[in-house]
């Protein structure tokens, strides 16, 4: 199953080299947003919010083919 993940803040370190802020590729079927976070190499501790196709969702939500997932950490401004 193919998904696109947009990564912000410190999570940018998980992006693919040629695409800053993006991870795009195949993931196993039946993954939730929480599974994806571990799949990418971090834990829920670093995540403030996730959205799937522009709608903020709980981490227990299942992913589907073609989903665009946004992961954001806790972040302040300046």
């Amino acid at each position, binding site marked *: 199953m193919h998904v696109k993940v*947009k990564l*912000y*803040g*410190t999570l*940018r*370190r998980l992006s693919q080299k040629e695409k*800053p*802020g993006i991870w795009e590729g195949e993931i196993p079927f039946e993954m939730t947003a929480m599974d994806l976070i571990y799949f990418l190499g971090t*834990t829920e*501790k*670093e995540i*403030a*919010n996730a*959205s799937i196709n522009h709608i*903020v969702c709980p981490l227990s939500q299942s992913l589907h083919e073609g989903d665009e997932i*946004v992961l*954001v*950490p*806790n*972040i*302040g*401004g*300046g």
Partner: protein
Amino acid sequence: MEQKYDGFHGRILRVDLSIQKVSVEEVDPRLFRIYFGGGALAMHYLLKEIPKGIDAFDPENRLVFMTSPLTGAKMSGQGRHTAAALSPLTGGLADSQCGGWWGAELKFAGYDGIIIHGKSKHLVNILIQDDKVKILDAEPLRGKTTGEVQEFLKEAYPSVRILQAGPAGENLVRYACVSADLKNFHGRGGLGAVMGSKNLRAIMVQGSNREIKIANPQGLKEIRDWFNKNLKTHPAISVHHELGTSKGIVPVSVSGLLPTYNFQDGSFKYAEEISGETMKKVLNGKTETCYACGVSCKRSVEGEKGKFKVTRQYGGPEYESIGLLGSNLGVNEITAVAALNERCNALGLDTISTGATISWAIECFERELLTEEDTEGVKLKWNDPETYMELLNDIAYRNGFGELLSQGSNGASQMTRRGTEKYAIHVKGQEPPNHEPRGKWGVALGYAVSNTGADHLQSAHDPWFTQLGDFSKECNWIDLEDLSPVGIIDPLPAEDISGAKVRLFVYLQQIWGFHDVLDWCIFTSVPEFRALSLYQLTDIVKHVTGWRTSLFELMKSGERWATLGRAFNYKHGFTSKDDTLPDRFFEPMREGTLKGHYVDREKLEEGIKMYYEMMGWNEQGKPTRGKLEELNIGWVWEEIKEL
């Protein structure tokens, strides 16, 4: 002039513009030990010297520029300085820190601060070159943009650092800012208008003694080397370096905390289009830095789209400006946002209050509380950057509808009435920055009790403290672990205002406060990043000053800063009634991730009461005599006891 003490000179320059007199005041070094510097030392003078009941534009108002013993030390985050005065926007305290290079240059010239009073008969500049201080005619510069003035002055004095008010300051726009070399700002509180009211356009500084004498250079070098080595691999700081504060736009929008459409919503559909990531791509974003800082997080952008063009002359927009000139006005294109930011900088307007005053007007126009008769024919709507661009000029030069807007959203709504007051989103007259408090109640408390009006640099951004972190990972923004040295150990929900949250707030306010009095950039340390720890911060102060200081004393200096600000406001007529939020924040959010969330009014009021108790203030928010004595500022009691 040889530096007398480790870290500071003990010399303050006094300029009386009414009689064009300049003098140098030797300062008791004990004052630096008590106050450290920055906002607290500035308030020492403001409290003593500004008479009760005067207007901010009265020549008797003082405009104080202050550094700290750390300013100019060779360490990241030490290029900042403070400006403070009676604010024309709030009628209370204006206390604002500014980055860049000017503060360090003032130290190199042999001064810790400048106190300006009186009013010149015509527009002047002050030129400081070590012991040579001159007051020069600036009338030919009247009305010119900050960029034009910078170029003109740099041609005559190529090596000076320049602090200046823009045309907005000259014209007494209540939220006019002060810019430092065009790219750094005392944004808030209308300090540019105080400069303008004194007929002072610019302060140029050049110092020849370029080394600050410190007590333990080797000790400081060790921390500097550690910091410089680690910042390259520190994930949070490397993102901050790459994108600056603008990194926050999308995460904050997804989290439902991005002010949108005059604080009606918390998520912006086009956040990505105005994000730091997009700015980097579309406007060829590069980084710049402040004095001696390895983090290098300032923006520099250039580009063109349609009618909008931006150059690198004014740097580039920060997170706060992108929000208030972007999402909060519905503007969905980054070049337009950057162009509005650049125009504000050229005119000397605070981007936050400017954006929020325009968004107030748009909402009122939409609700038919303002008509074309009020706006002098301007049809107001969201996402109309071309109209906003024209309004900026009208505000700065106080033409047409700009005259009303030059008063700020509170002032303008008080003049208009007809229910427009409800949509003026402000605390004590100052508009909030780019942080929605309905999802973080520590920020709500901070907005309400801040002595300078709504201000996000007071205390807890709650989401950081909702879980126990993984300290070993060293890759996060700060969290609870970083606060464990002061006894904060339990996670708390973001929408909470319990006793435990107020305690977290009080301690964090002390931490933010000692950054303020030391003129220290928060982006190098707790409270913003897990970079320099509270212990390292303490060691840096020891190495620079040679004082046998401690984290306890640093925390106390932050508490003293908050209490001095409180006493200043109390003297100028503020009471607990002013410690509140606009109604909007007590109402459910209209759209976004946190749709329906609101601040619980009763709980906030309870939290404010508890905050006073923890601070040693009475029910009116007035510092008690015992607390003032405990903070070693017993003299302040004389200023407020009769009130």
